[in-house]
């Protein structure tokens, strides 16, 4: 295993490289938008899955992903207006994990808005997370854009409250992505009504950006790349002119356009997930629009993980994927075609072999 220890040294080398700001693609494309106040950026970090081993030990690999995202985000110039954390801060919802993750997030030089992930929720139903980050769903306005955070990882009450003898078992069952004992994610009636009332205060022309943990669309139910009441959420967003949904959970590049709604997924800082099409027994509805991220090279432990830098200058989203061991990607709304597109690889002639998943 001599080669393996060589690779380990390479890991260390690349981990050290983050200190060099020169490696970072930090240039903001300042589009000439009539109203300069509308030009702003934010950063998006997600799915860190901080995992407690015992005592003061946490899984080093996942820790490194979040530490790196925070360090790089702090180096951004111009400074983003805020940072969103997209959920799954913890692996098993433990106080120790949320505390350890929160400590790392606290090093961000920005205001942080947090989204609930299923790994944060199903131990104590979000109670401790709330002590750290407040309400599970909320909204705010920023420079002419209306932002909404949804808690989209709820499920049937019977599953949550009646099926499992202990909270720990409930958490473990939901934590297994491919566990057939899991249950489909949903926003739920109460929150749908809240969203209806929240959007009633927003004019049709106001750009709206929704942050959720699960995709508010149906891609593959077996891994909960899915929200059971996605259509009902989409229906509430339909009357608006410009809507973007940004979601975590899938740990991979995805994007789609459904009617007036643009969808963008974000990378995890912890580990990448396979595309559902690479599970031979699954039927996947991944948008044909999506040019996948490269297949991960496991010998680079940060490969196929990363974080995002989001440019709102056009009123729509330009999603810049900062990939630790790979060529960065930019997926931006194309006003000519009315959908998000990869600025380099969208054309099928431009694709590279590692983007083929099987």
């Amino acid at each position: 295993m001599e080669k393996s220890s060589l690779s380990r040294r390479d890991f260390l080398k690349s981990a050290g490289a983050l200190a060099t700001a020169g490696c970072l693609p930090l240039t903001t494309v300042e589009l000439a938008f009539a109203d300069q106040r509308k030009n702003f950026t934010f950063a998006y970090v997600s799915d860190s899955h901080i995992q407690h081993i015992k005592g003061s030990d946490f899984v080093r690999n996942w820790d490194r992903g979040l530490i790196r995202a925070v360090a790089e985000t702090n180096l951004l110039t111009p400074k983003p207006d805020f940072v969103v954390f997209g959920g799954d801060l913890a692996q098993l919802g433990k106080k120790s994990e949320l505390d350890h993750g929160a400590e790392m997030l606290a090093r961000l030089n920005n205001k942080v808005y947090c989204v609930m992930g299923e790994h944060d929720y199903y131990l104590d139903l979000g109670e401790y997370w709330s002590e750290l980050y407040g309400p599970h769903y909320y909204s705010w306005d920023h420079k002419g854009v209306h932002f909404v955070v949804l808690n989209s990882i709820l499920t049937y009450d019977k599953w949550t409250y009646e099926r499992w003898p202990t909270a720990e078992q409930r958490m473990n069952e939901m934590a297994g992505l491919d566990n057939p004992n899991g249950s489909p994610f949903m926003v739920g009636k109460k929150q749908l009504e809240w969203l209806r009332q929240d959007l009633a205060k927003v004019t049709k022309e106001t750009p709206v950006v929704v942050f959720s943990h699960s995709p508010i669309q149906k891609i593959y139910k077996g891994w909960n790349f899915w929200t059971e009441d996605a259509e009902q959420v989409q229906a509430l967003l339909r009357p608006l002119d410009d809507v973007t949904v940004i979601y975590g959970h899938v740990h991979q590049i995805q994007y789609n356009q459904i009617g007036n709604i643009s969808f963008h997924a974000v990378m995890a800082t912890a580990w990448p997930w396979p595309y559902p099409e690479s599970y031979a027994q699954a039927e996947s509805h991944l948008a044909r629009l999506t040019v996948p991220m490269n297949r991960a090279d496991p010998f680079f432990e940060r490969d196929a993980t990363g974080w995002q830098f989001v440019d709102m200058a056009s009123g729509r989203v330009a999603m810049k994927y900062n990939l630790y061991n790979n060529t960065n990607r930019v997926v931006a709304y194309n006003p000519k075609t009315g959908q998000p597109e990869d600025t380099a690889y969208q054309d099928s002639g431009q694709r590279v072999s590692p983007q083929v998943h099987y």
Partner: protein
Amino acid sequence: MHRKVALLSLIVVVAILIAGGIALMADEFTAKDQQRWQEEFMSVVQTGRELWVSPELGANGVACAQCHPNAANTHPETYPKFQQQLGRVIALREMINWCLMNPLEGVPLKLDGPRMVAIEAYVAYERRGVAMAPGKH
């Protein structure tokens, strides 16, 4: 007397051999045999699945399924193949041990031990129906 008993035993043995003759033939088997063999196989697949999701397999609580739900993205049909990061052709089980030692920070399994066979059985089972493609990248 002794001889009579011996002769009787011989007759009984021969009778058993004739009556059960079909079962003793190497190349014929019944649907019931097939069902039993399938059950044996599936119980090993089940063991493999349990290991796949187990936080105990490695040393840091990380399970195989955390990165490979349903064993996806493991490409068993492409092995043996040139694992470019190691610079040689390897079998799938060597890659399984690589994962055990690196992301799972644990100790490798015995290459022909029952746990390795179970994991391989599970990975292959999840990939059933896919054409063999040794060496593919």
